[in-house]
């Protein structure tokens, strides 16, 4: 009996010891990796009094694998956190504005000139010259496939503050592409192997510590060319879960969050406590018609379906945002005002179907022609809540005009779309990523284009898109884009539903948190914490 107890006791003590050691190891290891101060909230209260350093806690909804802008999409984090800057950038109206380059012009079809602003310095104090910019752009192109495909550079020459870029072909969307955060300008003369955790860039804030997958801490850079920021330090915390982000905002652990879920947004309506800035994003929710299906080969059937759904209602009461006309949102200057889209006109829809010969003969509410019922298969992405809501609404509205929609959701639509195994495919696409209409028109709507999976073809549209390739005048480009959009709409080759909203919610004590349509940006030097 005694020896049994002895063994048990020894084993128990041993187990407890191991547990304690493990827990202790855990504690120390994590302390070295997380350098965040324990009492963020109390620290923040102190600062309000006066003179003390100001601190902000900001939630990031996405954080890449590291901080080197030349890898993957990490540059987006750098521009959002105001750590890195590109030569030029987009403003709230999606117009290009100067940043590190204070002026630029096109010398001929393939030659661009940029003047690098005097007095810009990196976080290590080094001066930004044209030569340094050239090396930074070359580094991004070398390390990232996206770099080569979006900037067809033949050669670059640098002289003093003047940078000249020669492209291999006339390339009108160069300006928009160089504004992509992949081309955040970094100091390549610094130790670039450390850029994964400490990139040396030019923004108003510089990285002081980075914990992969968790947080970035920054402090203001006193040598910032546009004047040092007001806020002294910021902690960017990666909070992926929508509900947690909203709860952390409510509990006061964070001061600013973007992409707050639609269902949580109502919690922040109290203007004495929070400020909400909500605008339509560059994302368009849209439907491909598979024109290889004989039912959908008839433009009138597609038009009827387009008239049969109430976009205004979806946008106003179901998912937010704005009812869509064409592929490009009103936030993009691509001729939104000149385009005529589809309204909710169920009577017109019914008339069109009548004329096309579809009638409900057996009285089950679904129209048929030659014995074939107007039943269509809609596929959608299960990850997007708003897509599911809209799909359900479409299903019930289309039933009223005699069209039966069957829905299937998938985690990834790609295979089904590419194999043509669908009739209607619903998804959301960012249509303004390069700040220019050409990329999307080329990619989705041209005959035989890679993502023209519905088999739509209109030679006249192809000609207009082709014209875009060599048109450098910005206003004319937008006119051509409007013309192209109208053709797509007249053919009802696609159905555009809503422009997805994006938002930024901040405590009312924070000023200067503005949402940009393109979500490359989140904060800048103007962010302030009120006294």
């Amino acid at each position, binding site marked *: 009996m005694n020896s049994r107890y002895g063994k048990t006791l020894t084993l128990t003590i041993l187990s407890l010891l191991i547990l304690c050691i493990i827990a202790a190891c855990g504690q120390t290891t994590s302390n070295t990796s997380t350098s965040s101060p324990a009492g963020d909230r109390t620290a923040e209260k102190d600062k309000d009094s006066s003179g003390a350093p100001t601190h902000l806690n900001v939630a990031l909804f996405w954080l890449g694998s590291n901080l080197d802008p030349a890898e993957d999409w990490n540059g987006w984090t750098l521009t959002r956190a105001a750590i890195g800057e590109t030569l030029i950038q987009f403003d709230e109206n999606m117009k290009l504005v100067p940043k590190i380059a204070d002026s630029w012009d096109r010398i001929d079809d393939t030659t661009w000139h940029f003047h690098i602003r005097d007095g810009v310095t990196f976080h290590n104090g080094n001066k930004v010259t044209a030569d340094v910019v050239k090396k930074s752009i070359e580094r991004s192109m070398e390390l990232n496939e996206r770099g080569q495909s979006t900037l067809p550079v033949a050669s670059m020459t640098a002289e003093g503050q003047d940078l000249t870029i020669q492209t291999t072909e006339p390339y009108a969307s160069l300006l928009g592409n160089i504004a992509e955060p992949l081309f955040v300008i970094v100091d390549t003369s610094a130790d670039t192997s450390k850029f994964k955790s400490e990139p040396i860039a030019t923004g108003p804030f510089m990285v002081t510590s980075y914990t992969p997958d968790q947080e970035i801490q920054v402090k203001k850079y006193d040598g910032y060319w546009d004047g040092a920021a007001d806020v002294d330090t910021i902690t960017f915390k990666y909070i992926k879960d929508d509900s947690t982000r909203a709860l952390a905002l409510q509990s006061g652990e964070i001061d600013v969050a973007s992409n707050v879920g639609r269902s949580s947004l109502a919690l922040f309506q109290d203007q004495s406590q929070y400020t909400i800035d909500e605008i339509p994003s560059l994302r368009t929710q849209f439907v491909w018609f598979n024109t290889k299906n004989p039912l959908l080969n008839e433009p009138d059937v597609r038009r009827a379906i387009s008239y049969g759904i109430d976009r205004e209602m979806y946008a106003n009461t179901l998912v937010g945002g704005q009812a869509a006309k064409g592929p490009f949102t009103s936030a993009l200057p691509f001729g939104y005002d000149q385009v005529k889209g589809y309204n909710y006109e169920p009577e017109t829809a019914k008339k069109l179907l009548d004329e096309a010969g579809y009638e409900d003969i057996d009285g089950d509410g679904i129209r048929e022609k030659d014995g074939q019922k107007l039943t269509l298969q809609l596929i959608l992405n299960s990850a997007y809540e708003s897509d599911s809501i809209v799909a359900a609404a479409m299903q019930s509205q289309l039933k009223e005009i005699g069209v039966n929609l069957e829905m299937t959701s998938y985690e990834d639509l790609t295979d089904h779309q590419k194999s043509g195994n669908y009739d209607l495919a619903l998804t959301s696409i960012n249509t303004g990523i390069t700040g220019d209409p050409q990329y999307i028109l080329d990619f989705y709507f041209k005959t035989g284009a890679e*993502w023209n999976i519905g088999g739509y073809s209109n030679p006249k549209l192809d000609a207009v898109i082709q014209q875009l390739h060599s048109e450098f005048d910005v206003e004319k480009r937008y006119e051509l884009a409007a013309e192209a959009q109208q053709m797509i709409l007249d053919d009802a080759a696609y159905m555009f539903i809503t422009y997805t909203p994006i938002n930024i919610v901040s405590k009312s004590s924070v000023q200067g948190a503005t949402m940009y349509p393109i979500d490359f940006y989140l904060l800048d030097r103007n962010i302030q914490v009120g006294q």
Partner: protein
Amino acid sequence: MSRYIVKRFIQLAAVLFGISFLTFLLTYLSPGDPARLMLMSTGVTPSDELVQQVRLQLGLDQPFWIRYGTWLGQVLTGDFGTSYKYDRPVLDILLSRLPATLRLTGSALLLVILIAFPLGILSAVYRNNVLDYVIRLFSFAGLSMPSFWLGMLLMLVFGVQLKLLPVMGSSGWNSLILPACTLALPLIAQYIRQIRTVILEEMSQNYVTGARARGVKERVIMMQHILPNILLPIVTLMGMSTGALLGGAAIVESLFVWPGVGQMAVDAIFTRDYPLIQGYVIWMATIYVLLNLIVDLWTHLHDPRIRLDVDV
């Protein structure tokens, strides 16, 4: 006994081999192309050419057997591959995530031991008394609450309303409280019921009646006879729950932005980070098998009637 341990280790290898093959097969068959998902993570539709490049780079163009063989060969030399997302060795990532999970697991288990044992014993001793009903009600409620809901409730009450504790993150000891409680509560509820049942069972044994007849005090019976005897089934149960907890309790870690292996596993699954998923599964399987082994050895030490080499 040493022969037994060697046998168990051979078994362990076989089990791990089987599990690794199955998961490799399942991830291979699951829909979604990691190359495409990697590129689409920011909402841009990548060109086929770009996807193809990435596929080549990741070796995804190779047939299943070659991919599995290569991977297995590397694992045997201690190389678990490189994560697609982080471009870092899988083993490094796992090891950097483990301390957080261990801390959470340790705290949750401690809570279970500190709370479930006294309550379970009280519930049995005062069977069908008011106290018993209250404890059973608590345990019933604890069992019925899904952990994500419980977690959000705790966040809402202690973080948002009372502003006592942080709702997220892993900075400072106080950020440990809510996730640990979320993990521990359902377990506590389960253990209370278990402990109560086994004690009641034990109390109806003849030796207890005999001891009572001899005038041995109730407290002595409980401490010296009943409790040592009920440890056996409870330790077996604890072995299993520790395994589950070390696996990372994915939902709780994701909800509280707790940087452990569970959150990592969820991320890896979303981004189809095959090497990381494989590494995680191997880790999980190893933990389960090792814990089982430890529990078996413990049981043997405690009760030699359970002979080890018989049931091999």
